[in-house]
């Protein structure tokens, strides 16, 4: 191996190290909303959607979830009107969630709260959950609430469960266990009883729910 080949070796090693970096490899840069819309919807719809996103962003709504909703519509080959309506609904829910959760709420909490509102959870439930969490994030309780309702648990019952867990300052595992019981209940609709506010110990997360290897 001659001295001149040492540079080549360093290059190979550098490429190897670069190839080993995983973090950004699966996360492409955000596409331009306008460019993606141009490929799918007519100019008039595109202008309306972009203007709607700009307007909502100027009113304080985070731009990222709005852009994502529009791009989801592009990917699913929705019409310009459908995309505009979906962005408008999401923007309204995000505004309501921000009002319910308070000015100090994190964006991830606001997005989770907007999801909860979209399936019928009352804004005051969001306010209570946020207040009950103190300085801790309300993301997990809000997400659990939405997941429970999505799994078929009635809204009032799901709200009672999550508020109870939140009031008791339950650990994150308790929320996962509540979700697991909702899954079990969803798969066995005839099973009696509701989701208890206290999670019995010994139900490991991830069991009985996944068909994955």
């Amino acid at each position, binding site marked *: *191996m*001659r*001295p001149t080949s040492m540079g080549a*070796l360093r290059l190979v*090693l550098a490429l*190897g*190290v670069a*190839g*080993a970096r*995983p*973090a950004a490899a*699966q*996360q*492409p840069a*955000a*596409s331009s909303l306008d460019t993606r819309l141009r490929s799918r919807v007519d100019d008039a719809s595109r202008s309306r959607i972009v203007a709607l996103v700009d307007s909502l962003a100027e009113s304080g709504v985070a731009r990222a979830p709005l852009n*994502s*909703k529009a*791009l*989801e*519509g*592009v*990917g*699913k080959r*929705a019409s310009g009107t*459908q995309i505009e*309506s*979906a962005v408008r*609904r*999401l923007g309204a829910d995000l505004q309501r969630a921000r009002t319910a959760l308070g000015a100090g709420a*994190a*964006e*991830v909490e606001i*997005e*989770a709260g907007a*999801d*909860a509102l*979209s*399936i019928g959870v009352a804004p005051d439930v969001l306010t209570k959950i946020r207040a009950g969490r103190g*300085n801790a*994030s309300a*993301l*997990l309780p809000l*997400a*659990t609430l*939405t997941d429970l*309702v*999505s*799994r078929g648990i009635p809204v009032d019952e799901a709200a009672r469960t999550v508020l109870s867990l939140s009031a008791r300052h339950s650990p*994150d595992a308790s*929320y*996962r266990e509540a*979700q*697991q019981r909702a899954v079990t209940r969803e798969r066995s609709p005839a099973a009696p009883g509701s989701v208890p506010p206290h999670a019995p110990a010994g139900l490991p*997360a*991830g069991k009985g729910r*996944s*068909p*994955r*290897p």
Partner: protein
Amino acid sequence: MTDDDPKLQRLAKELRQEPPLDSTLDQRVMALVRQHGPAAGRSGLVVRFRDWLLEPRTLRLSPLAGMAAAALVLIIIAASVSLSRHQPARTIADGAISQPEWVRFVFTAPGAAQVSLVGDFNDWDPAATPLHATAADGVWSISVPLSAGRHEYAFVVDGADWRPDPAAPPAARSDFGTPNSVVTVADRL
């Protein structure tokens, strides 16, 4: 002229005599040596080590040894890539997870030629995150780093068929007809 010539002998005698030296020459030479010579002590070792590193040299390797060295380098690179791709990743079935973490997505699609993951984390771009076929027939998977938040996603089979993840909670909204799934990555606020 012979060796016995007195003139020649006198000339040779004069040439053999050392020229007269300045009495301060030794001191001046030693001063210059101390000023420009190799450093003493620890810094001298550093300089010698640097010189050793920078000095070009030739290594003689047989073709077999060269191939073995190249194979070793490739094995090290492959191992580092493999380790980075197989960090412990939670599955969606584990429920909410801490941030930021690698999340393993698995989807069963017998007969599919390709499966990709789309979601709010990759701008819903079917070309961005293709799944890899596993050893199990019809089972596809990929691990993706996700930030804290509630992420909606779906799988796209053969470029056009959007499907939710049967192992994950359904998304609250279904604005465009085909439902999404949700994974929540818990934050630590």
